[in-house]
């Protein structure tokens, strides 16, 4: 991997860890406690940033996928794969922290709340993305299939968003609290932004390192293929 990308990743990682420390100080000592929900509301300072990163990662997956189909450059596919892995991780975090908050705030583990529902569907789209990649004999095919799934998913997510929102307006729930309403006081907003910045830095740190890993694997496969008598790489010429 190019050393510049790796050092950028490491710098972002340090920045991310620093921001995470600041975030924890803010969350546990500084920010005011929300009146109606109590301390459990503080889950939000990791829940919302994780959701932001999960959806941003899917944007990267779809854009890199479209670029891959267009330019047939393996690097774009490797970037899409790296973003998808990070996206799946942060989507899992959203899905695990959401119910923990919901159990206290709503009294139930799961509520068909718009953004939570959307995140669950996103998780399944990510799952399909990895399954499609894994279940093809020819890796080139898997890359194309995954890119197609990423693009269709990105086109469909707005429609899913609209439809779930509409469905919920049809059946109003009595106890839905607006978690980040326009009335949030500034210290909460600052904490939230620290969280978003920390998670974004961490995501890009992991993304760059994961991308570098994929580049090195690629180089390894090419070298093995070039070695006399070595196994022939299955269609991994770039």
């Amino acid at each position, binding site marked *: 991997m190019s050393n510049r990308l790796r050092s950028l990743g490491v710098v972002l990682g340090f920045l991310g860890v620093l921001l995470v420390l600041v975030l924890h100080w803010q969350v546990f000592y500084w920010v005011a406690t929300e009146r109606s929900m109590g301390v459990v509301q503080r889950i939000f300072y990791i829940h919302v940033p994780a959701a932001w990163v999960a959806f941003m990662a899917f944007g990267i997956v779809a854009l890199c996928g479209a670029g891959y*189909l267009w330019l047939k450059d393996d690097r774009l596919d490797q970037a899409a794969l790296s973003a998808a892995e990070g996206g799946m991780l942060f989507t899992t975090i959203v899905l695990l922290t959401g119910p923990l908050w919901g159990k206290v705030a709503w009294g139930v583990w799961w509520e068909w709340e718009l953004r939570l529902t959307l995140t669950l*569907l996103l998780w*399944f*789209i990510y*799952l*399909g993305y990895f*399954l*499609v990649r894994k*279940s*093809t*004999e020819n890796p080139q*095919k*898997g890359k*194309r*299939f995954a*890119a*197609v*799934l990423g*693009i*269709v*998913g990105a*086109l*469909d997510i707005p*429609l*899913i968003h*609209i*439809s*779930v929102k*509409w*469905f919920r307006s*049809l059946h109003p729930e009595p106890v839905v609290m607006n978690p980040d309403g326009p009335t949030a006081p500034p210290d909460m907003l600052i904490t939230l932004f620290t969280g978003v910045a920390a998670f974004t830095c961490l995501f890009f740190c992991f993304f760059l390192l994961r991308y570098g890993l994929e580049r090195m694997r690629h180089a390894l496969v090419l070298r093995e293929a070039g070695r006399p008598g070595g196994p022939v790489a299955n269609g991994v010429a770039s």
Partner: protein
Amino acid sequence: MDYLRQVGALVWKDLVVELRTRERVAAMGAFTVLVGILFSFAIDPSVVQPQDIASGLIWMTVIFGGMLGLGRTFHLEEDDGAFQCVLLSPIPRDALFLGKVIANFILLTVVTALVFVVFALFFDLGFGDHPLALAAVVLLGVLGFVAVGTLFSAMSARTTMGETLLPILVFPLLIPVVIYGATATSSLLQGLPVSEVDGNIRMLAAFALVALASGAGLFRFVVEE
């Protein structure tokens, strides 16, 4: 004009193959009737009236039954390499996709009509006061479903997991069809005016349009070797 003739020829080919084998329509038809029977025993009539949840059951039956047929869209041709010959013909890939979608759409429309007849018989269901609006809802919903399903059926047919992969890929993307289709069907079966489902029909049309356009554009990357 040429383009339409090509699409027409592909549709005709698929329908003739289906008429001769009757493989998919028979499987889907039997499946939907059996699901209707299972549903009538699975629902406790002292708790909920089947008529109240009929629209949801109808859509689930259409989607599950449809997956059965859509999953085998490319099977026959894939088995003896006939699809390679189709790919070698000078037909643009999007025409190929549209041909497959239209053929599947016709098959699934037949099956959906059967589903409605079965549910009308088993659950004593009327078709509401606006059969035309109901037909528009159902046809647009099925069109969107078929467009997404055909694209991913081409994909799953080329993976080692095969048809088992298809629902995992397609179901999360189908949420808009299920939501707008089932609620509109429910409103129409209850006899609400057409103006109630106006927005649903528009959203179903939008979904079908997006699915058709993205499928036509991306199909060539799926069938490319």
